[in-house]
């Protein structure tokens, strides 16, 4: 059962990350990058590593996505 969950989450991560870099607009790319961070947190939880999951949830999804969203605001929406 554990192996099946790990396989499914990895496949979802690969699909979401590939979709994140072929988007045309920058805003969609940033939101899909947040999905990569979320899948990473789920995988760290399955691997029984609570400290790393907490750190990735706060820093990877919270602060890293904020940095990219601020870049989007200052740069304007281009292609």
């Amino acid at each position, binding site marked *: 059962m554990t192996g099946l969950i790990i396989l499914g989450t990895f496949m979802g991560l690969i699909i979401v990350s590939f979709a994140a870099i072929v988007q045309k607009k920058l805003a969609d790319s940033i939101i899909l990058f947040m999905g990569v961070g979320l899948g990473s947190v789920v995988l760290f939880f399955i691997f029984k590593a609570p400290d790393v999951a*907490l*750190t990735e949830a*706060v*820093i990877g999804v919270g*602060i890293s996505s904020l940095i990219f969203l601020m870049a989007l605001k200052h740069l304007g929406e281009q292609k």
Partner: protein
Amino acid sequence: MSLKREIPTTTLSGFALSGLLVLTILSILLQNIPNKIQTAGNALLKLNTTEGVANAVTTVVVYFRGFDTLGEIAVLFIASLGIGLMLHSNTKCNIKAESNFMLQTASRLLFPIIMLFGTYVMIYGHLSPGGGFQGGVIIASGVLLLLISHKAFEVPHSVIVALETFAGVSYVLIGLIGLLVLDVFLGNFLPHDISQMGLLLSGGIIPLIYIIVGIKVGSEMSMIVQNLIKRDYDV
């Protein structure tokens, strides 16, 4: 029309190097299938039952590898310095818009709860998953919530400078006191009894250092967030 447009040389050479990386990792994996991966982790866990705190990862980060944490704090400080150099703005001209009434009321209700949760994660870092880095960034996200929803709120510059200086200097001072008392930099000079594992006051200097790390990381991340949001447009 040059030749460079017909053959994408950069992309092809990049993929060739990646293929080399794939073969290296595959060969490492195929040699380690019969469970030959061993680190010093098992010996460290046995040492933790006689000398550390309840959370084994906290003991490794703060006590067994405390010097690396000092280097990581230095890297964070240099990054914050660079961001402040590029993006700092001193004008009173504010580009934030006036926000909704619902957002203002809800953020005033949520801010003390987020601060309390961040302090709890920071102080109980040696008994449950958490610690200085996680608690500091949670506090910075509380400050971010207030920065977004209120037009005239900003954290004063002198407060952040005072907190950061105090935390950075006291980390090195604790290490030097350990050097004086025990001949080991960052040695454990406070009483740490093994019968107190699981209580709040256990482990000697380990909770103290993690609280100092949390204060420093929290104030630095608040400064980074404030520099990214507040900006003047001189167009």
